[in-house]
C-alpha cells in the first residue's frame, strides 16, 4: 500500500557486546541494506551515545532521510531517546521505529547465534516495513492539574511533599495512620547525623505545616483512581467516612516498609522479654522510650548483649521456615548492619560495663561514612563472630529464663561457641508493606523481593510503568533515612518536571477516522466502552474521536468493516507489512 517512496535510515547497535557478542550485526546490516527505500544501513558500538545519535542526525541532513529505524535494546529504554534525536533533527518524532534485538534476541538466543542473527535480520526488516508505513503524528495535548498527591506521610512522603510545595505545587499528603512520620516517629537516634529521629520529624512537620498549598490528610486512604497523567481523579476515604474527590496531575507513592516480625520461637523470639527486635531495642535505648533509656534484667543493668544479624533477611530455602501462608525473604535489607552497629556504639557509650557480641554473616556497611561506624563499633569493644548463612546461631532459653546462644564461628576456623547472655537483639530486616489495593489500583509491577519496581535504575529511576506515577523511599527497596529522602527528592523533581507547563503532551496513539472510508454503520460507536471517547453528532455520518478521552485500545478498529477507523501508530496495515517481512523468502524474490 506504500507506493510512495520513502528514505529510510537503518542503524544496528552493538550495545558494547551485549548484542554483537551473539548477533552478527554486520550480517544484519547487509541483510536489510537492499530492502526497498533503505538509503543507509549502518552499525555502531552504542547508538544511544552522542556519536550514535549524531550519526542519525548527520544522515538525516546528508541523505534527506524521512524514516529512521534503530535496532537496539528494548523500546522501554531508548525509544524516547531516538524520537528525541529525530525531533532535534527536524523530523517528526513518530517517523521512528524501534526494533528490540537485545532483550528479545541476543540475550535469549545465546546458544543459537545463527538463529538469533536470522531473527534479528527479520525483525529489522519488519521494523523497516512498519517505518515505511508510518505517518507524522502530533502529540495529544491536554491541560494539567498542577497538584500532586503523595501517598504516605513518612520521611519519604514528607520530603517529597515539602519539595513540591516549595515549587508552588498544590500537594496533598495522604496518610493512613492518625500520626505522621511513620517509622521516624518512634524514639531512637538515626545515623549518620546521630540525632533523635523525632527531632528530625518535628523539623519536617513544622516545615510542612508552614507551606501554603500543602495539606496533610491523616486517617485517610486512597481508595480509587481514574484518569491519567496530568489529570488523575482520586477518591479519598477520610476519618469522617465521607468519600472525597481530588484531582491531581501526578502521584508519588511513598508507602514505606514493614519491619520483619520474627515468628514465635524464631531465635527465642516471644519466649522471653529479653529477646527483642532491633527497632524495639533502639526504642529502649532512648530516654524518651518505654524503659526511659534503661536496659535492665531483674532490675539490674544487663551485662552481656548479643546482636544477631540477618533475621528476616537473606533467608535460605531449607534453612529458614516461612510462616504459614508467608514467604522467605531472600533479599539483604542493607540498612540493618549499620543500624545495629550504630546502636551497639550507643549502648557501649551509655553502659560501658556491658559486653557486646555481634553475630553476623557479612558486615555490609555499604554507604558513605558507614565503614567508620563499623570501625567505631570495633573500637568500642564489640566482639564479632561470623557465621555461615546456612548455619545460623541458635538461642536456647531454659526454665530459669537463662539465655544461651550457640554458634560455629568462622573467624576462629569453626570453633563452636556457647555463650550465656542477658539480652538478645534480633537485627530484623525490612520487608515490603502489604499495599495490595494500591498495586491493583495502578497495576504496579513488583520486584521478585516484593518491593515496587522502577522501570530502570539508571535510565528511568523512581518511575514506574504508569505515566505520572513515581515511587519514593523504602516502598521500592530497603533504604535508610538519607537514601529515602534522596529518592523522595528525585520523585518530586520528576513530578515537578512533568507538571511544569500548563499542558502535557500525551502519546498520539489514539483512534483516528478516515472520513472518506466511513459509511456511518456505527459498529465502532457500539464497541467503544469509554464515555464520550467516540461520539457522533445528530444528523452526521462520521463519528468524532475525542483524543483526550480515547485510550487507544483499538476495539473500534477491529470491528470496522472498511478499516476507516484505526489507532494511530498501531495500524493494522502496519502489522500486515511487518508480518510480510517476517515471512518473506530471503533472497528468493
Amino acid at each position: 500500500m506504500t507506493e510512495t517512496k520513502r528514505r529510510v535510515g537503518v542503524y544496528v547497535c552493538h550495545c558494547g557486546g551485549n548484542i554483537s557478542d551473539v548477533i552478527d550485526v554486520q550480517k544484519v546490516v547487509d541483510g536489510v541494506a537492499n530492502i526497498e527505500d533503505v538509503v543507509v544501513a549502518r552499525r555502531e558500538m552504542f547508538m544511544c551515545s552522542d556519536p550514535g545519535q549524531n550519526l542519525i542526525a548527520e544522515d538525516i541532513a546528508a541523505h534527506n532521510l524521512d524514516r529512521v529505524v534503530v535496532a537496539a535494546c528494548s523500546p522501554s529504554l531508548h525509544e524516547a531517546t531516538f524520537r528525541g534525536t529525530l525531533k532535534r533533527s527536524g523530523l517528526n518524532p513518530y517517523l521512528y521505529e524501534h526494533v528490540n534485538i537485545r532483550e528479545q534476541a541476543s540475550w535469549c538466543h545465546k546458544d543459537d547465534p545463527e538463529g538469533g542473527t536470522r531473527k534479528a535480520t527479520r525483525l529489522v526488516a519488519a521494523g523497516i516495513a512498519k517505518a515505511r508505513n508510518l505517518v507524522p503524528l502530533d502529540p495529544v495535548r491536554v491541560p494539567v492539574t498542577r497538584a500532586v498527591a503523595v501517598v504516605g506521610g513518612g520521611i519519604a512522603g514528607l520530603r517529597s511533599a515539602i519539595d513540591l510545595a516549595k515549587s508552588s505545587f498544590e500537594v496533598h499528603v495522604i496518610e493512613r495512620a492518625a500520626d505522621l512520620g511513620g517509622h521516624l516517629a518512634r524514639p531512637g537516634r538515626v545515623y549518620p547525623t546521630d540525632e533523635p529521629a523525632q527531632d528530625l520529624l518535628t523539623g519536617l512537620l513544622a516545615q510542612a505545616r508552614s507551606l501554603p498549598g500543602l495539606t496533610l490528610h491523616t486517617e485517610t486512604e486512597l481508595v480509587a483512581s481514574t484518569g491519567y497523567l496530568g489529570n488523575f481523579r482520586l477518591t479519598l476515604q477520610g476519618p469522617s467516612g465521607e468519600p472525597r474527590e481530588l484531582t491531581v496531575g501526578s502521584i508519588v507513592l511513598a508507602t514505606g516498609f514493614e519491619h520483619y516480625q520474627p515468628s514465635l520461637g524464631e531465635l527465642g523470639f516471644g519466649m522471653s522479654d529479653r529477646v527483642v527486635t532491633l527497632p524495639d531495642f533502639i526504642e529502649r535505648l532512648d530516654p524518651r522510650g518505654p524503659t526511659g533509656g534503661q536496659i535492665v534484667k531483674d532490675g539490674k543493668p544487663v551485662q552481656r548483649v548479643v546482636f544477631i544479624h540477618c533475621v528476616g533477611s537473606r533467608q535460605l530455602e531449607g534453612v529458614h521456615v516461612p510462616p504459614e501462608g508467608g514467604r522467605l525473604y531472600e533479599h539483604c535489607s542493607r540498612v540493618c548492619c549499620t543500624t545495629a552497629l550504630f546502636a551497639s556504639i550507643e549502648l557501649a557509650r551509655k553502659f560501658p560495663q556491658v559486653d557486646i557480641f555481634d553475630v553476623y554473616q557479612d558486615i555490609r556497611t555499604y554507604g558513605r561514612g558507614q565503614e567508620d561506624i563499623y570501625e567505631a563499633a570495633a573500637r568500642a569493644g564489640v566482639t564479632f563472630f561470623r557465621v555461615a548463612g546456612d548455619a545460623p546461631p541458635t538461642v536456647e532459653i531454659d526454665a530459669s529464663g537463662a539465655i544461651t546462644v550457640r554458634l560455629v564461628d568462622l573467624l576462629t576456623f569453626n570453633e563452636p561457641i556457647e555463650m550465656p547472655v542477658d539480652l538478645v537483639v534480633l537485627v530484623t530486616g525490612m520487608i515490603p508493606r502489604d499495599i495490595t489495593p494500591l498495586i491493583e489500583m495502578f497495576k504496579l509491577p513488583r520486584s521478585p523481593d516484593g518491593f515496587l519496581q522502577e522501570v530502570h535504575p539508571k535510565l528511568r529511576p523512581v518511575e514506574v510503568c504508569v505515566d505520572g506515577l513515581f515511587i519514593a523511599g523504602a516502598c521500592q527497596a530497603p533504604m535508610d533515612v538519607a537514601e529515602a529522602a534522596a529518592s523522595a527528592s528525585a520523585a518530586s523533581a520528576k513530578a515537578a518536571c512533568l507538571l511544569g507547563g500548563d499542558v502535557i503532551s500525551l502519546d498520539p496513539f489514539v483512534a483516528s477516522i478516515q472520513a472518506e472510508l466511513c459509511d456511518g454503520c456505527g459498529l465502532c460507536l457500539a464497541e467503544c466502552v469509554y464515555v464520550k471517547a467516540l461520539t457522533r453528532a445528530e444528523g452526521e455520518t462520521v463519528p468524532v474521536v475525542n483524543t483526550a478521552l480515547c485510550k487507544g485500545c483499538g476495539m473500534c478498529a477491529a470491528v470496522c468493516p472498511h478499516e476507516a477507523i484505526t489507532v494511530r501508530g498501531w495500524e493494522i496495515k502496519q502489522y500486515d507489512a511487518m508480518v510480510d517481512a517476517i515471512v518473506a523468502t530471503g533472497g528468493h524474490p
Partner: protein
Amino acid sequence: MGRVDRITDEHPMNEQKPKILVLATESCAYPGADYVGQIHASYPSNTYILRVPAPVIFPEAFYLRCFEKGIAGIIVMACGHECPYEGAYDRLARRVAVVRTRMRELGMDPQRLRLCSICTVCARPFLKEIHEMDAFLSQATTGSVTT
C-alpha cells in the same frame, strides 16, 4: 503491499523451522518478554514478538491472513484480568474463540492459535507457552495453509 522480498539472508533456505508470531501487550507481555531476556533464559529463535497496545485491535481476518502468509503459529500474549483497557480482554478472548472456530471450519488445527496471559515478570509461563507451541508445531505436519 510494499515489497519486502529483498531481505538478503546468507542462509536463505536455512530457516526451516515453522515461524511463531507472538502478539505481546505493551504493558504486560512485552515487558515480560524483556524480563525473560534480562534473566538470560533462552527459547527458540523462530519466535517473532510484535508489540501491541491491546491485541483486541486485530480483526478475525488478520489472524487468518497471517496463517495464509506462512506464519505457523500465533500466540496472543495478553494482560488477562490485568488488562488496562476496560472490557478489552473479554472481547479479545471471544474473538480468538471465533477465529479458532473458523480455523476448524477451514481444516486448520486451532491449536496453532493460542491466547494466554503473561505478566511483566512471568518468565516461566512465557517460556512454557513458547516451548509448547514450538513442540506442537515441530510435531504437527502443518503443511501449507490454503484458504
